[in-house]
């Protein structure tokens, strides 16, 4: 069978196909409503739901809840009649499957393992994602766009969130599910998986690009400078920029919020940066220390 058809019709992967359709549908619907409200706002008109009246809970709300419950139940029943949950061979510690994949919703994190060591990809970054999500309401001080869809009134927060949600999360999941084969190598959907395939990629570290051994003292110092410059520059540069162009915003934000926001942002952006370093420049580590490597 065509490997692509084989992959997307695997019982567990049907969920991901459903996810892709549902997420795309709701993404379009959300942005459509946002742009619709933006037009209303521009014309000085009330947005959707602003002049809502009240209705009884019993029955209008209870009725719609019942209908949705029935629709979901029918849908899941059809899914369950049509597709059987797989049961593989009994667990065998001596027989490692290749690739050994985590459940699909964690494949984004497993994909990060290509670019970061496990302590970062598996522990530090996930923790920061959770902390960062919880922090969103406290660092987003824009009072507008509360309780209605809009894009114009909160462009940056939506762009940044959407980048994290659709690209760093969902896209990486889709890559992990459909494009990763044995040895976690990249396979196009029409390519046959080849268990004997080895790819020799001449990975190097950042300092070896300029001819310095990354495990020497000089390499260590260079790595520290680059990493430090990214962190410190990333923390300071937005400050300078806003100080010059929008000082009121900085005052309103305050120091604690500023540091949290910018720290979370540069941590998030370190993911696509390392992906480019790795995939385009074949650079494995930026900074190697005796205790950890980044």
């Amino acid at each position, binding site marked *: 069978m065509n490997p692509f058809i084989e992959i997307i019709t695997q019982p*567990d992967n049907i*969920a991901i196909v*459903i*996810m892709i359709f*549902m*997420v795309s549908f*709701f993404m379009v619907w*959300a942005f459509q*409503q*946002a742009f619709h409200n933006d037009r209303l706002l521009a014309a000085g008109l*009330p947005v*959707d*739901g*602003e002049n*809502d009246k*009240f*209705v*009884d*809970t019993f029955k*209008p*709300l209870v009725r719609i*809840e019942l209908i*949705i419950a029935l629709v*979901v*139940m029918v849908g*899941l029943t059809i899914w*369950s*009649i049509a*597709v*059987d*949950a797989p*049961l593989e*061979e009994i*667990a*065998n*510690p001596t027989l*490692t*499957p290749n690739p*050994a*994949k985590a*459940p699909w*919703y*964690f494949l984004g994190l497993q994909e990060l393992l290509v670019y970061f060591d*496990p*302590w970062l*990809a*598996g522990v530090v970054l996930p923790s920061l994602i*959770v902390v960062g999500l919880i922090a*969103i*309401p*406290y660092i987003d001080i824009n*009072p*507008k*766009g*509360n*309780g209605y*869809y809009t894009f114009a009134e909160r462009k940056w927060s*939506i762009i940044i969130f959407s980048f994290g949600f659709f690209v760093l999360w969902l896209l990486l999941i889709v890559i992990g599910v459909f494009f990763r084969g044995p040895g976690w190598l990249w396979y196009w959907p029409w390519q046959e998986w080849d268990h004997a395939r080895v790819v020799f990629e001449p990975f190097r570290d950042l300092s070896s690009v300029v001819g310095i051994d990354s495990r020497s003292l000089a390499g260590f110092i260079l790595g520290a400078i680059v990493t430090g410059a990214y962190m410190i520059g990333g923390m300071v540069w937005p400050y300078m920029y806003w100080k010059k162009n929008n000082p009121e915003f900085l005052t309103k934000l305050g120091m604690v919020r500023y540091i949290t926001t910018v720290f979370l942002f540069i941590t998030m952006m370190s993911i696509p940066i390392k992906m480019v370093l790795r995939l385009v420049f074949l650079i494995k580590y930026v900074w190697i220390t005796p*205790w*950890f490597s980044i």
Partner: protein
Amino acid sequence: MKSLPEITNQVKKNLIWKSIFRRDYRNTVRDRAQAVFGNVFLHLHPVQVRESAVKLRFTWGMGGITFFAYLLLIITGVVLMFYYHPSIDQAYTDIKDLEFQVPFGVILRNLHRWGAHFMVIVVMIHMFRVFMTGSYKAPRQFNWGVGVILLVLTFLLSFTGYLTPWDQLGFWAITVGTNMGAATPLLGYQGPFSEFLHITPFNDVRFALLGGALVGGNALLRSYIWHCVAIPLIATILMFVHFWRVRKDGGISKPQK
């Protein structure tokens, strides 16, 4: 022969009926309100809601759908528990028995499996909706935080359930997943700086998760208890905090300009 209204009338006059429903429903304002706050399940709702709560456009019903998926998982999960032993000698054959011995066992297992996938998908979409409507802004900051914890718990519920069939898929997914615990800085034996705390494979985070240095019987028991008891308990409590706060924060968010 009695007509239908006569029969219903007689049923409603019955002492037992009256003890359950207390009063007749006459579709008056009062009765519609009574129907909500007189019912322990419905009274999570206010008596009246804004129109947006009834139209699908605003919330997409996603939070409610997530909750419905959760209820379905609890019901199918409890039934599955009747047929399952969390031991490595029996777990796998118990799942096989579902296929060949238990009446409707296959569809029961399928509903639980696909329901779990579905819940993960809809909870993510619910979060996206809440973000896009800016509903995490004051006064709902705290409830957004509760939601994030619920999101994590949803993942963990699904993840711990993966191991229970004791097949290759679950075994290796859990092996890969818990290996991350070994990489924890300070507390995992492969993590940075752990040598300063004298961490070994036998006293690190991964050992605590698995109840051993390898995925074995203890790990199966642990994941079973997390999956069937501990996490559902925490998640259920947090869901009620979540729903309570939706109401106390003024219901579904309305445009504030």
